[in-house]
């Protein structure tokens, strides 16, 4: 349960020196993708930050998000933050089970009503009254609605909680929905990815802890610090893309030379995530570095994007509306060269056709 110690007091009690604390702050700033010049300010707020209560609900999911978090490659920062936050309910990580676990959740909610942070992974089945996933006799839908009421903010971890994810893939047999489709009156931050990159999860928690608020977000509710740039813009294979050097198969000369994977289906150009810089497995590598294109797992409906190995094709989404609006806008604009290509891209998106390399590079240059 929450106590009143500040993080600074908590760390000093654990024997962390002042230099150790500054190091912790430098790592936290880097984690949150904040400029190093902010380290002293972070130190100041972290010193005085108070311990927040966190309730973590896992719904229709595979536990990959929790796996990602617990295998995070900055264990010092994570363990300190996780030691420090009061993780009052997480049915995979907590020792209690059954009624005791549910009582812990209810007690934490009561004690911290209006103040706790709610973290959700997994989508919420809505069809047939939500019977397809239940915990302690309660549907996920009921539990989310109940717990969300007393939350200060909600963090949707993983593409399932953020956008519906795999359970929502066509034909969506359980009527899976994202948290934001059900809770509409609370601040929500989406940390998509299948699973999300661990530093994005801890970075947002660290930011909430340090600054007491959610980070700046993009139009899909994702923190800009981690999802502000696409994979393609930060990909080290980009010079090959620019020169038109593409691997055509996974074992040709181009693949061996590390050329661009666009023609093998890489979704880097339409995927916003931090894999290219934050990387995975203790900073070892990321899919493109291992020779496989990006599958676009942090984007809505990535599973229905027409095939991981087809040159860029994108999710259908609200295709019919998009195509009409795009056509009308393109006609009205008189169609400059770049606009034509953007228009083609929108049409391809709407019709779910593969985009051609030439179209994309023409657009880049316009």
């Amino acid at each position, binding site marked *: 349960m929450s106590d009143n110690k500040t993080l600074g007091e908590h760390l000093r009690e654990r024997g*962390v020196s002042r230099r150790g604390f500054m190091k912790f702050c430098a790592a936290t*700033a*880097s984690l949150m993708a904040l400029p*190093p010049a902010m380290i002293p300010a972070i130190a100041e707020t972290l010193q005085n930050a108070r311990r927040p209560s966190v309730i973590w609900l896992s719904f229709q999911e595979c536990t990959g998000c929790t796996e990602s978090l617990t295998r995070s490659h*900055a*264990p*010092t920062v994570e363990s300190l933050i996780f030691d420090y936050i009061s993780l009052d309910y997480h049915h995979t990580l907590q020792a209690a089970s059954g009624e005791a676990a549910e009582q812990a959740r209810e007690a934490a909610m009561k004690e911290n009503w209006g103040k706790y942070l709610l973290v959700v992974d997994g989508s919420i089945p809505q069809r047939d009254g939500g019977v397809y996933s239940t915990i302690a006799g309660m549907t996920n839908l009921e539990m989310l609605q109940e717990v969300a009421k007393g939350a200060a903010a909600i963090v949707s971890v993983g593409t399932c909680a953020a956008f519906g994810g795999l359970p929502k893939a066509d034909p969506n047999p359980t009527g899976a929905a994202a948290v934001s489709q059900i809770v509409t009156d609370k601040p929500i931050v989406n940390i998509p990815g299948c699973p999300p990159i661990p530093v994005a999860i801890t970075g947002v928690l660290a930011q909430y802890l340090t600054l007491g608020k959610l980070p700046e977000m993009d139009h899909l509710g994702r923190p800009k610090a981690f999802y502000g740039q696409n994979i393609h813009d930060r*990909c080290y294979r980009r010079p090959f893309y620019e020169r038109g050097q593409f691997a055509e198969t996974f074992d040709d000369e181009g693949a061996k030379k590390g050329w661009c994977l666009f023609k093998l289906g890489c979704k880097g150009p339409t995927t916003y995530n931090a894999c290219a810089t934050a990387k995975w497995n203790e900073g070892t590598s990321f899919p493109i570095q291992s020779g496989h294109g990006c599958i676009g797992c942090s984007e809505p409906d990535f599973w229905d994007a027409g095939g991981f190995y087809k040159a860029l094709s994108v999710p259908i989404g609200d295709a019919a509306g998009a195509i009409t609006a795009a056509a009308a806008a393109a006609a009205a604009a008189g169609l400059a060269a770049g606009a034509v290509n953007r228009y083609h891209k929108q049409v391809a998106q709407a019709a779910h056709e593969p985009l051609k390399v030439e179209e994309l590079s023409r657009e880049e240059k316009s």
Partner: protein
Amino acid sequence: MIRIGNIPVAVVDGSGNQAFTGNITPILHEIRHALTRLADSGEPTTIDLSGIPFAPGERDALLERLGQGEIQATLQALGESRLYETAYPGVWVVIHKSPQDIELTAHIEVTRVPALLTTPLDDVREAADALAADLAEPTEQESA
């Protein structure tokens, strides 16, 4: 029966085949600007290397290019940190590792001395008190 040793596997180091992103030169220019700023106005600059896209081996190439200067220090707090001045005075590399020896951050600091190497004032005050307390205790010789 096929044994693992019979499978013709050759480990190939792919790094030699990969072209670099071309990010080394812009970073060196950024450092050059930062050095001028430090010399003219005393203003330090920190560059977080973890936010910059590098091809495999490229960051090592950057650090190699910067070389090694006269000073090297290690900090033992929440894991080991290595701080050293490069061959360009005023350009420091600061690498923090966790107690599990996993790299947490890598920064280039353009400064006269990285802040972490200076003793925190509160530590100095506490040191004065601690020494005064030590002196108040009679030493073995005095009590003999």
